[in-house]
């Protein structure tokens, strides 16, 4: 009976919790954040730490518009329908000022469309899809992260310089992998018209048959491989491919391959010599990054991942927008976001009025080994603004606001 009573008490507490309207605190500004924390945990745990640190810093410095800020975070379960419901809850019940976050492309696009419908500012943090600012772009949506197109474009100079003729391609079979592949083919062909794409493998996300895929690529006898695999797929591909000699005498380019989230699990098997985009946190000594890294390591006793950068910078973008707008009015916030420029650990970023894409850059380099761990070597920073197509092309893709 005791347990039954306890059960009842617990249930009633839950019921109460779900129906109680949260008291609107007057002294804080709430920002709504949603993400697929459980589905993409490896990236999003550091991401959450990033924005938590940002909130602490901002509040320690006195907050914004005379108020403290609070990020109200929700799990969207990696599902666009859940994300739209959660967004609705954040807006109508938590009365958040606007929305930030999301990870996978489909969730990002669904929330962007919702933001347009609700005429509410939405700053997408992580979604890489080009469509969110171009084909499906809208007046209320902005995106921080260096997009698929931009990161691919950053690898093109090296790819073209090698003058390899036969290319094989492998990518996870969904939006990100597809657009990376399309962008790569288009951009490389422009630079090097005689290029040949000799094999294409599109394994399902998270379910690559790495041995068979590596073998099939090797059978095509490519001079170089372009891959956009990440996570467990990448780890499996690297191991199977190197055991089978599929990378011998072949140059490999791997989008995102240098991000600590995906490089570190490989440990001493990190594929030396691969060209990647990523985040060499150990080597960036710009003052803004040093400050960020020291604070992060002091707070969490762990080194930052790329997710930490995105989470931290995203919160900072939100704060900068409010500061510039001087109000929480949606139209004023959107106007402020357009052309907004602020500092991040990766240097200054600007949200382009043209397409609402930020100019956040990325690091390009090659994988090396140090003390049994993969690192990026010979890396350089590429500013995002240098990796974007011409304004003309962007206008063609983006619908009029």
């Amino acid at each position, binding site marked *: 009976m005791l347990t039954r009573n306890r059960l009842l008490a617990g249930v009633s507490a839950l019921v109460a919790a779900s129906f109680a309207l949260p008291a609107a605190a007057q002294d804080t500004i709430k920002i709504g954040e949603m993400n697929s924390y459980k589905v993409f945990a*490896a990236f999003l745990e550091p991401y959450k730490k990033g924005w938590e640190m940002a909130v602490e810093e901002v509040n320690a410095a006195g907050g914004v518009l005379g108020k403290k800020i609070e990020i109200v975070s929700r799990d969207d379960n990696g*599902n666009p329908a859940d994300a739209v419901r959660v967004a609705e809850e954040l807006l109508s019940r938590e009365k958040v000022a606007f929305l930030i976050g999301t990870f996978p492309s489909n969730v990002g696009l669904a929330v962007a469309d919702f933001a347009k419908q609700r005429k509410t500012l939405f700053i997408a943090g992580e979604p890489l899809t080009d469509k969110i600012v171009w084909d499906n772009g809208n007046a209320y949506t902005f995106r921080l992260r260096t997009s698929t197109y931009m990161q691919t474009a950053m690898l093109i100079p090296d790819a073209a310089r090698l003058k390899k003729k036969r290319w094989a391609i492998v990518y996870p*079979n969904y939006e990100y992998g597809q657009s990376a592949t399309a962008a790569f083919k288009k951009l490389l062909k422009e630079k090097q018209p005689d290029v040949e794409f000799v094999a294409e493998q599109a394994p399902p996300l998270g379910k690559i048959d790495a041995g068979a895929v590596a*073998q*099939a690529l090797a059978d095509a006898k490519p001079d170089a491989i372009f891959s956009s695999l990440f996570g467990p797929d990448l780890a499996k591909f690297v*191991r199977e491919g190197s055991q089978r000699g599929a990378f011998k005498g072949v140059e490999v380019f791997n989008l995102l391959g240098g991000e600590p989230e995906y490089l570190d699990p490989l440990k001493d098997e990190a594929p030396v010599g691969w060209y990647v985009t990523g985040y060499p946190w150990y080597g960036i000594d710009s003052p803004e990054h040093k400050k960020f890294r020291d604070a992060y390591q002091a707070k969490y006793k762990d080194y930052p991942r790329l997710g930490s950068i995105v989470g931290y910078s995203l919160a900072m973008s939100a704060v900068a927008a409010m500061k510039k707008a001087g109000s929480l009015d949606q139209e004023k916030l959107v106007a402020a976001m357009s052309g907004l420029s602020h500092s991040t650990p990766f240097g200054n970023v600007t949200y382009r009025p043209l397409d609402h894409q930020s100019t956040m850059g990325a690091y390009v380099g090659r994988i090396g080994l140090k003390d049994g761990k993969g690192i990026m070597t010979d890396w350089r920073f590429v500013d995002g603004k240098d990796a974007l197509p011409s304004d003309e092309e962007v206008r063609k893709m983006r619908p009029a606001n």
Partner: protein
Amino acid sequence: MSYASFVIQLLNGLAAASSLFLVSAGLSLIFGVTRIVNFAHGSLYMLGLYGAYSLIEALGRTPLGFWSAVILAALAVGLVGVVIEVVVLRRIYRAPELFQLLATFAIVLVIKDVALAVWGSEDLVGPRAPGLAFPVEILGRRIPAYDLLLIVIGPVVLAAMWLLLARTRWGALVRAATQDREMVGALGVDQARLFTSVFFVGAVLAGLGGALQIPREPANLDLDLSVIADAFVVTVVGGLGSLGGAFLAAVLIGVAKAFCIGFGFSKLTLVVEFVIMGLVLVMRPYGLLGKPPATARFGEPAPPLQPPRRWPVVAWLVAFAVVPLLGDRYITVLMTDIACFALFAVSLHFIMGPAGMVSFGHAAYFGLGAYAGALLFKKAGLPMELALVLAPFVAGLFAVVYGWFCVRLSGVYLAMLTLAFAQISWSVVFQWDELTAGSNGLVGVWPSMWLSGKPAYYYMTLALCGLGIALLWRALFSPFGYVLRAGRDSPLRAEAIGIDLRAFQWAAFVLAGTLAGLAGAVFAFSKGSISPSSVSIAQSTDGLVMVLLGGVETLTGPVVGAAIFTWLRDTLARETEFWRAALGVVILLIVIVFPQGLVGGLKALYARWRPA
């Protein structure tokens, strides 16, 4: 593809088949004896990988350390299986068919969050097998020595299992129970101990399958669900309860995937196993080596179905109708979701409860209805209202085709064929970029102006879903519905009094599919977007969970289940970080306290407490 690559891809396929076989063999064994569809089997596999990783780190990266770790991890997973059986499943063997599936679903949620808490979110790449970390050259191509070992391990385990089953008393009992569960009870065997031991062996096989993958696959949190679908497919293609069949099916599927990749059709790997399953089931209704089950239905016969009493329904409708007046916009949004899911669950219950045809792929109709609505609106340019009205019929058309094949099977085979069709639909939706926008899904699917307010849309949802539910309930008490119930109780008798049962079941399939399509279309316009996840296994599973949670043998159960599940998930996800584990624990509590589902349990309580 040259001869050499052909051979190598064949070997690749065989290596991949090995672990798949181990997992499936365990699943098949457990199902054969206990009739439990163990949804948590993939989680046991995942624990095998994580366990092996940690044990290798502890015991050292030496051949001895590696192989002790693999075996210890498998045994440890076996113990987890024992705990699951003793603590949870043993309490609910007498519950209605498939109810145990709900419990194992909850266990999946709990294990996932426990693994996250223990091992963290980062993928854990284990070492290569010490002593076997070299490639072997075959026909001028290199293949890892470990893969060749895996190719041998599969048949060795098959032989060992065969000996165990053929030569020991335990094996004889397992075989007897697989053929006829009642008989084992009659033989005076301690059923509880037999079941526990079967769970142990099944879990060890899953754990071993996982642990052996450590040199090939990083331990990560997505393994459970990605493996369980494959394992179900292999088990069913091989024939439930047949180890040889499972082996054959694992090889067939492993090799087919490798050849898809080898021949340059890598996009097909998304769906090839489901295509194979569909073809096999259409041609061999009990799998490659399976036999028709002795009895189609297990456990107690279904109790009579009571029509809903009028006043509680009216009271509920009034309660639903005043929701938007509460002034909390979000409750209206949540209730819109609940109404859509309620119709979805009721339509699933219509075929799986009274008609006795369990569907593991009901999301096909929900999702296709949603996509039909979105496409008619966006691509065909129809007015939103017309798109919404036509969409269910598109879903119904698919049900006409899929249902024609499905009603020719029964039991788990039928359920798995529905899953095959759902997955084939999903993969088409997921990859047909020009039409469905692929993985991104369609956006901008918003209702017309007069429905754009949340209360307006909610009232429309309430009206449409309410009418849909009323129609299904009404049909259940019509001669048509009685035929379905009669056909579930005794197909033999139905046929003997001149009833063409299949035709009725087919019609039921189409009706349920159409109304699931309505639920999906209403849902799509309430969200403004639609993505392939609405056609996914997860969506189908949600439907099953709602029906079982509320109680499959009651009429209102699915509605209550839909409401409770949606509300719980929403609330728990907000209140706790480990919301999946919390949701799992709550479902387990409900399962143990109310083995007939919530509504069934409450009715029983009411009947007991009511003054006589």
